[in-house]
């Protein structure tokens, strides 16, 4: 092997398939690796995006076209009738309103509770703080499917003894959703706060800031990316939650979007697929829009659990 060939091979190996392209002339291996990468990426994009795209296609179809059993992958007679029907239906608008109220309240509660707790846990060592941090993480691992039955019974008992009606009221969700959001948000905020140099709060302390001022004037602004990531997480979780509302709410004026779509748009055996897909798409829109605009924060929040802490 000549010296140049060795060099060529070396460069290729070193670059491997992981290197960004820097040279005009790529080796053949490299080109082939790139081709297959794109090939499989396209296949997976098709697999991953088919359901949402099919949702969109169906949402533009009239019931007659759906029943006509023509090519399902094409819209021959596009119409916005489904959107119009849903967005003028007071029932559906109630779902949207309920979802929005629940999510906004849950996000606010979550962020206040978890930012305060994360600040205390990351900066003020106190008796049991390490155990508490571990406990919070474990709570995040407890799925809602383990708790919905005892919670259901608990709320019934509360009603019995105090007369406070929780079941079948949308606000019961504001009460229970934080159990899904707070542990993880606290956990990632601990990670973000821990990455703030200790000297920064000492400087604030010397500057005369109280603990709460240190939190509001230093920690929250500095950890803003983490706050955004945690907020997105809390929102997507509370927006998408399905089991709790399905178990705890039944009257159609108390339902949130996902449950409302599944329970009211599917009436017995009658599936109005155009409207169902439109509803599903509308319900999927807020998280998708947030994702589209704040992708980096969204992903940071997603990976924070394992890469921080």
């Amino acid at each position, binding site marked *: 092997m000549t010296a140049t060939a060795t060099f060529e091979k070396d460069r290729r190996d070193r670059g491997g398939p992981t290197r960004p392209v820097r040279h005009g002339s790529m080796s053949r291996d490299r080109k082939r690796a790139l081709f297959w990468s794109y090939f499989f990426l396209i296949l997976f994009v098709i697999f991953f995006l088919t359901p949402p795209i099919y949702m969109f296609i169906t949402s533009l179809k009239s019931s007659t076209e759906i029943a006509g059993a023509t090519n399902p992958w094409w819209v021959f007679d596009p119409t916005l009738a489904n959107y119009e029907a849903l967005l003028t239906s007071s029932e559906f608008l109630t779902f949207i309103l309920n979802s929005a109220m629940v999510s906004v309240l849950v996000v606010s509660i979550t962020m206040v509770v978890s930012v305060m707790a994360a600040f205390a846990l990351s900066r003020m060592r106190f008796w049991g703080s390490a155990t508490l941090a571990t406990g919070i993480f474990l709570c995040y691992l407890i799925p809602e499917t383990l708790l919905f039955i005892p919670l259901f019974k608990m709320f019934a008992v509360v009603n019995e003894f105090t007369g406070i009606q929780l079941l079948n009221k949308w606000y019961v969700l504001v009460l229970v959703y934080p159990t899904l959001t707070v542990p993880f948000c606290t956990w990632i905020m601990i990670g973000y706060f821990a990455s703030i140099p200790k*000297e920064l709060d000492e400087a604030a302390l010397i500057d005369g800031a109280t603990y709460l001022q240190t939190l509001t004037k230093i920690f929250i602004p500095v950890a803003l990316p983490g706050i955004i990531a945690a907020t997105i997480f809390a929102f997507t979780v509370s927006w998408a939650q399905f089991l709790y509302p399905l178990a705890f709410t039944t009257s159609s004026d108390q339902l949130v979007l996902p449950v409302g779509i599944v329970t009211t748009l599917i009436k017995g055996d009658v599936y109005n697929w155009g409207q169902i897909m439109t509803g599903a798409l509308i319900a999927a829109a807020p998280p998708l829009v947030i994702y589209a605009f704040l992708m980096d924060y969204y992903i940071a929040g997603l990976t924070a659990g394992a890469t921080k802490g």
Partner: protein
Amino acid sequence: MSQVTLHKVVKNYDETPAVRGIDLDIADKEFVVLVGPSGCGKSTTLRMIAGLEDITDGEIVIGGDVVNDVPPKDRDIAMVFQNYALYPHMTVFENMSFGLRLKRVPKDEIRQRVESAARILDISELLDRKPKQLSGGQRQRVAMGRAIVRDPKVFLFDEPLSNLDAKLRVQMRTEIKKVHQKVRTTTVYVTHDQVEAMTLADRVVVMNAGLIEQVGTPNELYHHPRTRFVAGFIGSPAMNFVPCRLEEASGALRILLPGGHAFPVPAERTERYRRHAGSADLVFGLRPEHVTETHRNVEPNQEAFEVTLEVTEPMGMETLVYFQLDGAEVCGRVNPAAGAEAGQPMTLLADLNHMHLIDGTSGLVL
């Protein structure tokens, strides 16, 4: 009136002692540098003065008040941190004024004080920038500005220059000295760099293993170190140490090294050293600048000896030579023109007028 007094100050971290009872008086307007190797307790001491660490035992007095239980903000101190600790989301102006704003100082006064501090530090153009847009040296200035603005009784510096590159460090060192001359505030400065300590301090406090080894002016420490630790810590390259014996022969003393080299003790020190004659547990100390090439007019108490050089390091204005002397590595500083060459023999001259004799057990300079 802003003296700082430490009285028998002790700090333990879960039973591990970090500071083991130190006494220190810092005069008003004085610039004191705490210096020592990492883990010697110098930063802990500074942080106790700042109020960032609780005091296990003893008393700290600032400006006449015992401040043991006073929170940092009420101690009227300002601190400059190693990594600057600038608030990344605030502009330079906001950084410098944060403390004043928390104290609800009137806006006009804040602006005036920030601007005057900025003028002292020559950062008036940077007031609207964020820390991210600043260079290391500029950040350092802002951190100092934040301290100056508060017009405190005491400035505390915690290794403020160690994050800067060598050239900038020298420049900022001068800058800090100038600022101190302008604002004349009592200053406690912590560093592990003895050059920084020597150049900046009115008085240097050398610490080791949680205790103060010696307090003195830079020159006192250099020329009259009280312990082997101080002798070895101050000065670069460090002082040479060779274990030795002291022998008396016909009224004169001489140093006897284990390998047979002998050096006469200057006559004026005979009285001082006499009672150690015969003791085997002694260490002979001589700074590298007192191990030179031979020259024509050899003065009294200068003793020539021959060695084989192991390593030579040309520094430009001088050449450092390293060699073995009776089992110890010794460094000398010779004229570049003296023809020092690694592996070659060379005759060197030891200037015993500057020798030190150290008790091997107690580590005290005799």
